[in-house]
């Protein structure tokens, strides 16, 4: 990030575009189409993007590819669903949305740290496997535990808080909440990686022994980075739960876990923006593949598109844009900075 000025201008332009997105869509699409795109494509992409960004943050700056981020997001969602008033069935209930959301985010942060603590001595494929095992363990635990999580049906009717007198499921309330959360978290991650903590994290990624020799506690930094990623994923998990009017084990199963990895890889693991690019592509294809292609075989199309993206650009779509920009300047970027 040696060019902060263009990067900031780019970010502000993207944010402005997203803030105006509902109005822009309204100009080119019929009314209900614009609403659908606002909430179910862009809004959903932002929510998935937040969860994927927690993975991108860990992978890009720490070198940890974790498969447990959807699980952590789900823990936040389940915590909200368990404590909030009005959920069906009522497990604990009685809490208002602000308190339940705070509890959910705390649970996600703690469980993120816990994942980090359990996986602290592993790297690469072993880290991938241990986080996958944790994710599947939590999934099965939630799926089979009726008393706390209502098993396979999950907890429904978590409608989200009212904001400005409007229900949360109102297209624009949902969209701007997701956008605001995503923008704040994005800025937070960019700030964090420039802070001393973030620099140590990148040092650990490049050479953990040297960082340890400098006197930093590698394990503690690692666990802290997982806790931060847990908080970010938790924000996405809470929003996803409101979007789905509840949560069930399917939301955190193997499919959902792998989707987050796909989103991150398709978008590009070299910068947090990749998570949102990947999420947008994912949301579009997940929604429209069956319309474009044969109903019974649309998963083939999704697979082929993702394969094509990864083949054409190993650092994802956002990396592809960077390459094209580099080609226009007659320079070839050196790819992702690690390996």
């Amino acid at each position, binding site marked *: 990030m040696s060019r902060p000025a263009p990067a900031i201008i780019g970010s502000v332009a993207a944010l402005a575009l997203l803030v105006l997105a509902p109005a822009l869509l309204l100009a080119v*699409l*019929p009314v*209900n*189409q614009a*609403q*659908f795109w606002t*909430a*179910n494509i862009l809004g*959903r992409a932002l929510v998935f993007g937040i969860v994927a960004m927690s993975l991108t943050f860990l992978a890009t700056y720490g070198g940890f590819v974790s498969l447990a981020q959807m699980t952590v997001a789900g823990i936040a969602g389940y915590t909200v669903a368990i404590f909030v008033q009005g959920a*069906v069935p009522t497990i604990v209930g009685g809490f208002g949305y602000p308190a339940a959301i705070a509890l959910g985010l705390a649970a996600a942060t703690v469980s993120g740290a816990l994942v980090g603590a359990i996986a602290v001595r592993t790297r690469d494929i072993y880290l991938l496997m241990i986080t996958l095992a944790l994710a599947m363990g939590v999934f*099965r635990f939630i*799926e*089979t535990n*009726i008393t706390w999580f209502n*098993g*396979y*049906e*999950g907890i*429904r*009717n978590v409608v989200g808080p009212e904001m400005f007198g409007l229900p949360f*499921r109102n297209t624009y309330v949902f969209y701007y909440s997701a956008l605001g959360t995503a923008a704040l978290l994005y800025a937070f991650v960019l700030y964090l990686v420039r802070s001393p903590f973030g620099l140590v994290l990148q040092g650990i990624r490049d050479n953990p022994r040297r960082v340890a020799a400098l006197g930093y506690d590698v394990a503690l930094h690692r666990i802290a980075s997982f806790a931060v990623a847990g908080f970010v994923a938790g924000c996405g998990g809470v929003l996803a739960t409101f979007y*789905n*009017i*509840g*949560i*069930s084990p*399917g*939301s955190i*199963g193997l*499919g959902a876990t792998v989707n987050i990895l796909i989103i991150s890889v398709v978008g590009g693991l070299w910068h947090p923006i990749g998570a949102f690019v990947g999420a947008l*592509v994912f949301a*579009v*294809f*997940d*929604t*429209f593949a*069956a*319309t*474009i292609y044969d*109903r*019974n075989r*649309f*998963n083939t199309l999704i697979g082929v*598109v993702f394969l*094509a*993206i990864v083949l*054409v*650009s*190993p650092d994802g*779509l956002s990396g*592809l844009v960077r*390459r*094209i920009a580099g*080609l226009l300047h007659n320079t*070839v970027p*050196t*790819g*992702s900075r690690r*390996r």
Partner: protein
Amino acid sequence: MTIRITRRQALVGGAGIALAGAAGIKAPAIAQNAPIRIGGLTTLEGPFATGGQDAYRCVQMELERLNYTAGGRKIEFIRESSNAQADVALARARKLIEQDNVDIILGPLSGAEGIALRDYSRTLTGKSIVNGSSGASDTTLRNPSPNFFRFSTDGTQWMAGLGNHVRKTMNIAEVAIVAGDYAFPYAQVFGFNLEFCRAGGKSTQYWAPLGTTDFSAQIAQINRSSVGALVVVHGGTDGLAFMTQYAQAGGKLPLIGGSIMADATMLSARGPHRSVMMGMVSGGPIADINDDPNWNDFVARYRARWLKEGGFQSPSIHGVNYVTNLQGILAGLEAVRGDLSGNQAAFQKAMSAAKFKNPMGAEVSLDKNRQAISDIFLNRIEERDGRAQTVAFARASQVNQTLGVPEDRFLALGAPSRDNAGCIAG
């Protein structure tokens, strides 16, 4: 790792992605006097994929027969698919309603999806969701939504008569029940136990999550116990996995089947499970062999249309349920001459009052919660024409959602769950 790509590669890749993106953006034109749009939602992935495919076969066949018209208006049928998970079903339903602008959704297939869509339907105005094949009892029994209609019977109803048959006719005092750990099997187990335990029977439940592939521990436990029969309430690939392992473990108990167990999707699959399934008794809304002109006509049309294109020898339970619910929609549309104005108020009223005979020849009508009251069949699997088929040998007429128990007493028993399996003595 640095991969260099040429300018041309980058441009071709970029153009391809842009093209794919543009294809998704096309917006359907909304014309005056447009056809009625019905959105289909079933599962074409996951454990119930074969049932979901058959559901669309049957729906397509019926719509082709009517030349895609009802109440004087054209019908457009838009298909979507989920994977038996609530959040995916919800995302697809939103797409159908908000993007494809459908008037009515026909679906979903599985229990958890049904409950999620019931909740979603409550947030809609001027749209109707008519069930496909999902059979969780709570979808309509508790806290029903005014926009959710179910012309098919639920899992509890499908067991009407089976508990009494096992206890009284087969004279079995104790059974082991293996069942999926989600809403639909809860409803089935509840319905079975309600009769069986009241008649003095005793039951032990063994639950397994949807998508389980290894049942060996459960089977070992059952083979060590001293029960007189085994009740299997699995379906789809779970049912196949269980029955295959049970056959391989040398299981010899008389079998009682849940409704989606004794079905064309199971009987048409190859494997060792077929040998032990012969003679299995089950209850449900359909049977392969049923002496009713409606049914024989339906089966004949199904075979003529689909046997060469991957269809079963006999339509599946999911196919028949989707068609039964489609009939409800069509009856409503005929009654209002295709008029869906006024936020569908007249149409929904007409659906609530609809009465018709479904493909099995069973009378269908709705109760105050927009839930079907209909006939249930007791079946036995027999070898006919060189293959295993379910043969109806008894019929329980006009079964309601509480199996004839007064509603307040039935509701007081609590919602079916793994801890409330309906085994109430006396």
